[in-house]
């Protein structure tokens, strides 16, 4: 069984119409199911697809209409599961008047971390996200990226086995994104599970073991990045050079014709410079699902 199990999740938001007579209903989640193991699991989709709602339901901030969520085999409403869980919301915010250390102290208070361990623990976490030396400054003096990194570090204070991150890379510069990405990889190597949503597809493609694409409240695709890449392989791009010539030629070939063409090129006296897969990127796949959904809807 996975660390996080989401089974047939449905959620409808009711909104009062202008005069309050008739309630408008919007189905946001239409039977979402997936399982997260000890891996990096990317959750992608366009704006309004239901990513944040799914995360809110998982975190028990919002109650679903139906469906089941299990974290470490227990229902998500069981408060004890949060003892071993880290969470970072989208565009996180914390009081600007307190210092970074005071916020970390709050987290340590919640998890009952003894005072004598705190200094070492805080130093480790701050070093991890490149924030050493700023802990005594008020958070209002931090940049947006620094706040995000501080709050990300704070999610690790209890050494969680499952990390749930809603758009952890948004608003970060490339250095900040790299820091978060390397920590996520490090956590995976330690056998932890990371479930995160993102709209920065290149990061998802680079980081994730498995990916779920959600469009209009439904999971359209759920597979490993390697399988998706294989499935959406259109062919290969071959760069060759005729022996004795200095100019390069680029050829495109279908998946099944690769070996045949390579043999022929060899026999005709061509030197093979490179063979690269011609595939759809995760971004192109996502866009194709969105367009398909628009056409259907």
């Amino acid at each position: 069984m996975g660390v996080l199990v989401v089974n047939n999740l449905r959620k409808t938001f009711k909104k009062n119409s202008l005069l309050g007579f008739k309630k408008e209903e919007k189905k946001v989640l239409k039977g979402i199911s997936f399982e997260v193991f000890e891996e990096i699991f990317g959750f992608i989709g366009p704006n309004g697809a239901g990513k944040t709602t799914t995360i809110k339901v998982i975190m028990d901030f919002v109650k679903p209409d139906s469906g089941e969520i299990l974290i470490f085999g227990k229902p998500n409403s069981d408060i004890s599961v949060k003892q071993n869980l880290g969470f970072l919301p989208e565009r996180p915010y914390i009081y600007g008047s307190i210092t970074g250390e005071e916020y970390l102290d709050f987290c340590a208070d919640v998890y009952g971390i003894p005072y004598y361990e705190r200094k070492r623990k805080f130093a480790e976490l701050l070093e991890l996200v490149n924030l050493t030396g700023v802990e005594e400054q008020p958070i209002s003096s931090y940049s947006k990226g620094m706040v995000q990194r501080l709050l990300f570090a704070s999610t690790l204070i209890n050494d969680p086995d499952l990390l749930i991150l809603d758009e952890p890379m948004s608003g970060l510069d490339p250095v900040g994104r790299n820091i978060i990405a390397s920590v996520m990889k490090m956590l995976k190597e330690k056998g932890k599970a990371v479930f995160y949503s993102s709209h920065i597809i290149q990061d998802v493609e680079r980081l994730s073991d498995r990916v779920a694409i959600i469009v209009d409240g439904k999971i359209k695709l759920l597979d490993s990045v390697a399988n998706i890449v294989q499935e959406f392989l259109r062919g290969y791009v071959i760069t060759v050079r005729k022996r004795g010539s200095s100019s390069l030629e680029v050829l495109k070939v279908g998946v099944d014709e690769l070996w045949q063409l390579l043999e022929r090129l060899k026999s005709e006296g061509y030197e093979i410079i490179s063979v690269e897969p011609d595939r759809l990127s995760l971004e192109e796949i996502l866009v194709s699902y969105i367009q398909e959904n628009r056409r259907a809807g």
Partner: protein
Amino acid sequence: MNPFPVAKITFEELLKEKSFIGLLTLEVFLLFVSKLISNVVAGDTVKVAMDFALSFFFFTVALYSVFVSVGSTFRDVSDRVVYLILSKPLKRSDYVIGKFLGCTLAVALFTFLSFFIVTSGILTISSTANLYVPHVVVVERVFLLSLLVFLMGVFLSAFGILFAILFTSQVLALISAIFLFLAGLELSPVKELVVSSKYVSPVNKLIVQIAYYLFPNFSLFDVKDYVVHLAIKVSPLFFASVFIYSLIYTSAVLLVATYLFDRREL
């Protein structure tokens, strides 16, 4: 149940808020205003100055309690701080009670500092006057008033948290809490007027009497006259009953706030 981490961080946040120092500075300024008013009004200048100073004290603590409780709770929800807090092994009731305890600590410190400001001001005003004022008695009575004002602040904080949870607009929550306070102050005179009137029907009298006992009665905390007029005596039983009243009512308000917050979609 573990509300203390939330209480601690709320207290730390509120102490560093500009409103804390701002309202204390306003109180010092209002003491000067009280002295100036007492100079232009006929009567015992010390008593008039005391009356104004204590009224300003009473209303400043009330305003502070409403602003911090509504503001802090509302901001937590609208700025999504509540997500960071509730993603940890804390129940929603821990959050509500912790928020309340944090506000209570801030109100306690505010009232305590206000007590020093107001007492120092009153003693300074009385020492410059030619009238004899028994300082020990005045300080003791201002202290008793401060205790009641603190209880009122705690009571108002509970309502502030309830309204911040109940309403989706911060302005509406603030206005409701301030109106509740002002209405609760005028409850006793209205009840006396209605009950003693021969033009009001018995049914209406009964409705007003029921409303009187159900509605929070903030006039109970207003014992300014006891401080200003030294001849007035108040039984210790009165203070005990006000304490029990605010304890029961505050608990009930917090219970409702917790119930509503538990069911709220964040």
